[in-house]
């Protein structure tokens, strides 16, 4: 169960890491798409229009820097989809202008779009929010899903411990009855079971975490080996590993408390 819980938590942590990284990379920037040149305005006319757009953007309040991405940079961006061959000559590709906003700046995008379209009709101003919003929503869904999985696993673990403890109580009924008669406090009897549950929970938890760590590292290594450029780096941070390390003691604690409550409730039925 710790194995499954570790994978669920790891998935949630990875998604959190990835979305946070993307958010950090994309927030505070704009991408301007200039429609590909037509037969009439190809060549110098189109290049001059793009340069005019870059100048206009550079002077716009709140914009720190604007840069026209050359063919090499566009090819690099499209490499995961089009391969190392780059963009075919006959494929119409829009010109891209990367805009870096000043820290804390929030320019009026409608006014900016209108101004840009006055220079180049059809210009698109993308602040990445729609894409980022969808991505964050997906990330949030995955995190909630992982939380539900973890809760279900905790519920299953608690149920399993209750049944195991009850079985233990039935098996050791003679011992419990004797300890009760010779004057053992309920807490003393419960302690014998809860220590056992704690040890089992810790051992099982560490084993499950070990398996989960092996799985996570193997998947990460496999993804790196495939030189996949679409998926982001799926390696967990040190903080995430530290969080996963808390799972075995947390599980052991849950097992211990469950065993204690179960035993005490059973003993309460004895006079």
């Amino acid at each position, binding site marked *: 169960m710790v194995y499954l819980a570790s994978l669920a938590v790891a998935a949630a942590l990875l998604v959190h890491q990835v979305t946070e990284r993307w958010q950090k990379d994309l927030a505070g920037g704009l991408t301007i798409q200039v429609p590909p040149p037509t037969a009439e305005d190809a060549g110098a006319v189109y290049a001059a229009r793009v340069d005019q757009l870059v100048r206009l953007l550079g002077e716009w309040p709140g914009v720190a820097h604007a840069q026209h991405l050359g063919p090499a940079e566009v090819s690099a961006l499209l490499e995961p989809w089009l391969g190392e061959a780059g963009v075919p000559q006959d494929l119409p590709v829009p010109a891209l202008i990367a805009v870096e906003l000043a820290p804390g700046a929030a320019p009026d995008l409608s006014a900016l779009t209108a101004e840009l379209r006055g220079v180049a009709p059809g210009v698109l101003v993308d602040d990445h929010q729609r894409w980022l919003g969808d991505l964050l929503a997906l990330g949030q869904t995955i995190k909630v899903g992982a939380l539900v999985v973890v809760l279900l696993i905790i519920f299953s673990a608690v149920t399993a411990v209750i049944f195991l403890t009850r079985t233990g109580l039935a098996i050791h009924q003679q011992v419990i009855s004797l300890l009760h*008669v010779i004057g053992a406090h309920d807490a003393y009897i419960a302690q014998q079971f809860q220590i056992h549950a704690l040890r089992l929970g810790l051992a099982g938890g560490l084993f499950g975490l070990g398996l989960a760590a092996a799985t996570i590292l193997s998947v990460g290594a496999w993804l790196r080996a495939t030189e996949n450029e679409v998926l982001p780096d799926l390696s967990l941070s040190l903080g995430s590993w530290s969080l996963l390390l808390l799972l075995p003691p947390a599980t052991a604690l849950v097992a211990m408390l469950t065993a204690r409550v179960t035993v005490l409730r059973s003993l309460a039925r004895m006079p």
Partner: protein
Amino acid sequence: MVRFEEVSLRYDAGPEILSQVSFALDPGSFHFVAGASGAGKSSLLRLLFLGLQPSSGRFSLFGRDVAGLSRDEKALVRRRIGVVFQDFRLLGHLTVVENVALPLRVTGQKGQKIHEHVTELLSWVGLADQLNAFPPTLSGGQQQRVAIARAVIARPSLLLADEPTGNVDDRLAVRLLYLFEELNKLGTTVLIATHNESLVARFSHPVLRLKDGSITPERAAYATSSSAAGTAA
């Protein structure tokens, strides 16, 4: 020490096992509880070691009304009672020493002192050479003595024995009774439940006779009961 006032006992909705039983045991006394099988001797002992709750009536142990005791207080009262069960109730996975040490362990005592104390007692009951044996490997008589040692290791004020001679021959039964008398001389109040009439006849201790759920004192028991409890049913 022990005082029963019109105590009745029934299991759930079943018939009364004990009916309005009244008696008292003075500190340092030695009593038999006699009666045929099924007369309620074991139930009476279970009441005494707080293994059951009476259906009605009042009883007190060591001067305290049992009904008013909390769970923790009941545990403390049980520590003052030693019980020898008819079936011994020894734990097969523990050695003789560990079995006998249990009542000391539950009180939180640890270490070498327990071992010395237990070893000394086991020598006294003639089991010095069986310290590390496991109960299933012992004879009935040896198991009986381990059970007795466990019952008295914590120096109980009250010793209850349920058919302690049921599994041993007459000669050993008499020896066990002498052992209980020795403990009684040390100040322990002793109450022995038995259906062995010849054994009861052989010793001159007062008898509480159980029949049809009622108790009838015999020999000096009447005087003891009357003076302490007022009535003896």
